[in-house]
């Protein structure tokens, strides 16, 4: 089973050597708090090791879409919409 690296850029590479910027570009990290997914492989691991001081890494089972990553950070709205019991029942039956 293949897994993925979930890489988030926590510290910017401003003022660091050109090579460091290039590694981040190769990983697809353009700004702070950006998250990318790459399959676990030695070359990606080598790239992560080059910028290990700047990123946070997790191993995950699948790539999340950009929207899913965004939704993780979305705060709880603090309310919920009540529905009529008939509508709720029809929805649950369809699911």
């Amino acid at each position, binding site marked *: 089973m293949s897994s993925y*690296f979930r890489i988030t850029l926590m510290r910017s590479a401003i003022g660091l050597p050109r090579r460091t910027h290039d590694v981040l570009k190769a990983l697809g990290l353009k700004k702070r708090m950006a998250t990318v997914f790459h399959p676990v*492989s030695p070359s990606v691991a080598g790239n*992560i*090791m080059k910028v290990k001081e700047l990123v946070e*890494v997790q191993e995950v089972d699948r790539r999340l879409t950009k929207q899913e990553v965004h939704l993780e950070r979305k705060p709880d709205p603090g309310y919920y919409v009540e529905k009529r019991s008939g509508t709720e029942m029809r929805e649950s039956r369809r699911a």
Partner: protein
Amino acid sequence: MMFKPSSPLFSGLLWKIPWRLSAPQKARQRKRLRGVDRVVDTVSAALERNGYTTKSVERWYKEMPREEEMLPKDKYTLFDKKEKKYRKGIHKLPKWTRVSQRVNPPGF
């Protein structure tokens, strides 16, 4: 009394870097060291699970001490041949919060 020229008196604006780190700075330094350890551990575990090995990770484990294995001396200071007692604060290292500086010459 004669005017004694010293750099803060001699020029106007002069940034003075304290010679040692404060306690919160040292705490944050330890946190960053642990963060790097965590990244390397995650990468290594993921590679192992998928049956790969990588030279850079192996080399890191062979050469670099972990945060808990390091002496306070190596966490907060680094070797400098021009200093008295051959040590200066790690915050004198350019970009010190974003580079790994863990080992020093043996005997210093």
